[in-house]
């Protein structure tokens, strides 16, 4: 089973949504870093104001969005952008998870730099957004769509 047009459009819709979400939250992160956005929304979304991390989220979003055109035409090449988008999301997620683990280790061992650490300090959009890429992981692993 290859990627037909209707299936491609479903994947394209997903790719658009996830891509826009990553890009939007990336912009929000930059705005927070610049002090132009703070407030309750930033807190709800766990914004940290790291501008480079914001640029990283935007790049990931753009990768998802770059495949939308070919996906909506049912071209399997569009799946490449979903696969790499998922890969980048996973790298970012794994990085933040490792950071959380490392900080937890520092806290458990009672080192000075980690005395005030709480797990919530390490929650950020790059971490929680990954859970929305689970359908993307399913798409990426679906071998027959690529053939």
């Amino acid at each position: 089973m290859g990627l037909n047009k209707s299936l491609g459009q479903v994947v394209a819709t997903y790719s658009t949504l996830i891509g826009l979400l990553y890009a939007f939250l990336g912009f929000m992160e930059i705005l927070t870093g610049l002090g132009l956005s703070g407030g309750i929304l930033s807190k709800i979304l766990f914004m940290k104001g790291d501008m480079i991390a914001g640029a990283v989220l935007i790049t990931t979003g753009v990768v998802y969005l770059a495949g939308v055109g070919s996906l909506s035409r049912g071209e399997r090449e569009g799946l490449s952008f979903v696969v790499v988008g998922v890969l980048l999301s996973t790298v970012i997620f794994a990085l933040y998870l490792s950071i959380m683990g490392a900080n937890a280790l520092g806290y458990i061992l009672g080192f000075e730099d980690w005395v005030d650490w709480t797990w919530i300090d390490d929650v950020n959009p790059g971490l929680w957004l990954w859970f929305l890429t689970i359908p993307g992981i399913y798409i990426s692993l679906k071998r027959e769509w690529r053939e």
Partner: protein
Amino acid sequence: MVYTVALIGNPNVGKSVIFNNLVPGARQHVGNWPGKTVEKKEGRFHHKGVEFNAVDLPGCYSLTARAVDELIARDFIVEEKPDVVVDIVDASNIERNLYLTLLLLELEANVVIALNMYDIAEEKGYRIDVEKLSEQLGVPIVPTVAIRKQGMEELKDVILQTAERKVVRKTKITYPKEIETAINSITQIIQKDERLTRKYPVRWLAIRLLEGDEEVLEKIKGSKCEGELTKAISTDLRERLGEDPEIVLAEARYGIISNLLRTTLVKGAKKWTITDMLDKVFLHKALGIPVFLVLMWATFQFTFIVSAPFMSIIEAIIAWVGSLFEAIPNEILRSFFVDGIFGGLGFVMTFIAPIFFLFFALSILEDSGYLARAAFVMDRLMFKLGLHGKSFIPMLLGFGCNLPAIMATRTIEDEKDRLLTILINPLMSCSARLPVYVLVAGAFWGTTMYAGTAVWGMYILGIVLAILMAFFFRRTLLKGKPAPFIMELPLYRVPTFHGIVIHMWERGVVFLKKAGTYLLGGAITLWFLSSFPWGSEQSYVYLLGNLLSPIFKPLGFGWELSASLIFAFMAKEIVVEALGLIYAVEGETAIKAALASSITPLSGLAFMSFVLIYIPCLATIGVIKQETGSWKWVFLTVLYELILAYVVALMIVVVGRMLGFS
């Protein structure tokens, strides 16, 4: 009885993985080939009660005398005559890989083929008749998937059988009639000299002479048939073949391979592989570079933040061991151990953690096949700025250590391209600078993401400056265009944990060796200069620092930082040792606090950039002299880097202040 097994193959065929599968890590010995700077790996393994010594030969496409790697591999087979030569062939790229196989058969080596990456060949739709191919080549073939350790036991069995076989099967590669006639006439002449026939395979010698191999021409010098051979090669052949014999023979070999595969390989419809998918984005014109930057950012965040608690663990251990020396009654001796060794060298040792974390992350990128893509993506930009595509690999190696990176420029054929790459290589941020970044970034931004970003920024700054300086040199000292570049991209693979750990260890251990030599020497020197005259408020370091501090005053560096920069000439990590001794405080937290109270964050950033750019370390200077053969290029590198370091650091301070930072 110990059998010698040589492993040979094209680059990126999984040769190292097979070597690691055969020889457990602890039994591997890494050194250099005699008289060469090429790494030599060997180690022993047992199979069914028989002992083998495996030697990992350098990866090569051919066995000519032009490239040092090929010469090493060839000389080993010719001179050492290993009992078995395991030729690792990439099954998914079998046509090109069999070229080396034919050369090995010409050498009359006792060949066993490991048909590796068999899974990828199958994924590509290849169906290889292994039995028939083995029969036609006259050598045993074992399909393997080394990364999953598949086929390893079978390979060991075949190595054992082949080693124990008394007579080496001489598979004759038959060339077209005209070439065969030429080979035969040369063979007849060689056979007159018993010294040559005893030492070298006669037919191989004839073929190499036909191809005009300079190294082989040297071998026949002094032979009683030298004159006759020289005459036969020069007159007879070129006229009869009408073309360069080397080209004729290469074409003939590819013809033989094509005939072999006609009956043994069926290529199904080309499937769209995962490599095709990933390359669509990783090599994308617009997205390739941003994706590369994202991955590098993740690498440095991982290096800096995740390693932080491990640094604290090492520091706690060193502090505990150091405290045992507090009981020494002699004041000077106590100071030597507590301040000099544990306060200075011990402090640098805490940076083992980020260095190993960096190499762990880079090994993942390399083993997965991504780093080659990064080189490809950057090549477009680099070519526009006057850099050769092959420059990227030495530049990338520069992230580890500038020393092997500069040596790796030997792969660049064009002299101007090579010189240019050598000149800019010290701007690539080697792992020795990492401790300085980690310390300064940590002093001002703690364990937050900003610290990781600042460290990443230094690496990016190094790349940007290298590119800008290349642009400048290309338009001034080294005018011209870079030579065109063809690059082979390996297939993507899921890296194995074992492989990553081995690569990380091989690179990280360089730091440990340095700790026992340069850094120990540096720690002792620094302790002496900062402690003497004993009991005086004004130590030698203080005097030196004060001498330099007027120069660094506009950058906001006090005498402490100025003095630390002098010693970094030996090795960049010594800056960290020096700061520990100069501030006369113990422990990472105390040094960070001392640093944060003596300079502003902006000056901290300027200090990081200064350490990144200014003069290469002593060993790098030595290798620049060795590789360029002239002090002129050494002086130029030192001079431009000193000026550039000062200008960039000053710009950071001035522009930063203008933007309202402090």
